[in-house]
């Protein structure tokens, strides 16, 4: 049933700072299938946002996409000329960013900013684009679309801004929507509404969605498949159900233990010892090894490759080799 729409292979994105090279994404591979919600999970700073920006080729100075392939419907996005890539952005792959406060241009109206994308991609006259904008504002369930279209972002609440953002991004009906922590910056009460809206749109338009989050709860509720990232690397991929039932990688296990899931009352939530490894000088071998309770001698020497750990499951850990 699964036709891949996007597959990322061996992606490496490094940032060249005067203090050293930050290997934010260091050999990441995964596949997003059509009509599914794929989750990229990990702690803050693990490289999941950089991965999504690399897919869109929105990496800024001083970052550079070093190597890898990003196959979208069979085309390697990293090899496309910039002009072709522009046609992909917004039209084929759209992206909702995490901070609605800052992701909307303060000096233009909402309608203006939404209308821009159809104007660019479909070459429609501005009056029609404006109508489209109002239509999409209605679709994201904002009251008074006509009035809202003329508002500047700063008069809107966080939730309303994120709705405008979503409207802006789906206005060209993309095939893949990347949502980078779409609900982190809004009130808890709004979070669920927004998530429902996204899923509803996804369902109605038969889009694929790549959800980037640090929130395992959210993954459990919405995700079809998930990849867990740690320090610029994918450590585990599998269906959400599988991962939650039986996490393979010690890091995933650690994360699970931090969660108060369902009714399984634990006496205490566990904590993963140590701190996130530095992406500038990552430890030799497995990057999780210094914090890992199961670390063996080999872990400190060789990096474990991502290998099959079951049906449709992959894990990067020496425990599951042999």
């Amino acid at each position, binding site marked *: 049933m699964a036709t891949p729409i996007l597959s990322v292979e061996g992606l490496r994105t490094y940032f060249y700072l005067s203090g050293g090279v930050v290997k934010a994404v260091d050999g990441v591979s995964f596949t997003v299938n059509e009509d599914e919600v794929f989750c990229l999970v990990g702690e803050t700073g693990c490289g999941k946002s950089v991965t999504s920006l690399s897919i869109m080729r929105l990496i800024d100075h001083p970052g550079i996409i070093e190597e890898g392939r990003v196959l979208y419907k069979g085309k390697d996005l990293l090899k496309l000329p910039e002009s072709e890539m522009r046609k992909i952005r917004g039209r084929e792959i759209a992206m909702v960013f995490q901070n609605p406060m800052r992701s909307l241009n303060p000096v233009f109206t909402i309608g203006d900013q939404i209308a821009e994308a159809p104007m660019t991609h479909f070459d429609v006259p501005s009056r029609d684009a404006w109508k489209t904008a109002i239509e999409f504002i209605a679709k994201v369930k904002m009251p008074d679309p006509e009035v809202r279209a003329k508002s500047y972002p*700063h008069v809107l609440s966080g939730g309303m801004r994120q709705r405008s953002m979503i409207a802006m991004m789906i206005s060209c009906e993309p095939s893949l929507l990347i949502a980078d922590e779409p609900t982190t910056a809004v009130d808890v009460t709004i979070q669920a509404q927004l998530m429902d809206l996204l899923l509803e749109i996804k369902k109605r338009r038969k889009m694929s969605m790549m959800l980037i989050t640090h929130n395992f709860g959210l993954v459990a509720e919405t995700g079809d498949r998930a990849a867990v990232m740690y320090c610029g690397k994918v450590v585990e991929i599998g269906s959400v159900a599988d991962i939650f039932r039986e996490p393979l990688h010690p890091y995933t296990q650690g994360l699970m233990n931090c969660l108060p899931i369902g009714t399984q009352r634990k006496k205490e939530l566990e904590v993963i010892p140590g701190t996130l490894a530095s992406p500038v000088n990552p430890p030799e071998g497995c990057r999780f090894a210094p914090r890992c309770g199961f670390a063996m001698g080999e872990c400190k020497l060789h990096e474990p490759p991502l290998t099959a750990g079951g049906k449709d499951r992959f894990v990067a850990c020496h425990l599951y080799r042999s």
Partner: protein
Amino acid sequence: MGALARYAFKKVLIGIPVVVFVTLLLFLIMKQVPGDPIRMIAGERVTQERIDELRKSWGLDQPVYIQYFYWFAKVMTGDFGYSYVTRQPVSYLVWARLPYTLELTFPALVLSYVFGVPLGVIAALGRGKSRDYVTMGISSFFYSMPTYWLGLMLMLVFGLYLRWFPISGSTSGFESLVLPMLTFTLPFIAFSARIARTEMLEVLGEDYVRTAWAKGLPSTRVILRHALRNALIPVTVMFFLDLPWIIGGAVIVETVFSWPGMGSLLYKSILRLDYPVIQGVVFIIAILIVICNITGDIVSATLDPRIRVEPEKA
């Protein structure tokens, strides 16, 4: 716009005490200066009785606060008093020279904006590349250049050696304007370019610019519409706030080039301790500053729908 008008009116109200304060301060300071203006302007062949007579006829035997009160009351009617040295109305002296200063400073401002901002944007877009280094290197160079020295060197090369332009004065029309204006403009272009670059870099790193890219907009649209429009807000506000600084620079440039503007008038009047003229010039400058500040605020309010009431400038 009604709100904007109210806002402007409020700003003007705040401006008035500023002008009063500045001129009063100056008035008091001037009275502390050692030296008797009447004696200073009178020549050698003058007796003490004659000086006392003159002092009385100038009203300088009155207490300071009365002098200030008279002065301010007269200023309200457009009368700035008479110069001690030339015995002419100060308003005449100032108005005769204001056009020259504007002729010099206004093009300098416009040019610094017209050339400086694009240079800054080019440098910002090519961050870390050679054009960034070249643009910023050159602008750092001019930014570090004392204006009087730049003026002298331009004079030496284009006035004395090449004889392309008159060396100084204002009597050869546009040709006399070229060198002083260049002297004025180059450091300000450099200054604007630096600011524009900083602001542009700041804006280019903003999330909303990334959003614009993510929408698949062409780069010209992203840069010129989304980024530049935002970067221009602080740059433009700073542009208005810099006007008084340009007038400060005018003192030096006008003195170097014998340009008959307000700056050289101020310089000369300070040397001669010609208080009424100093007062007049400073009053005009204070008014200009207040106007610039208000204009800056209003412009920023117009450009920025969020209406930053307190524009950043540092």
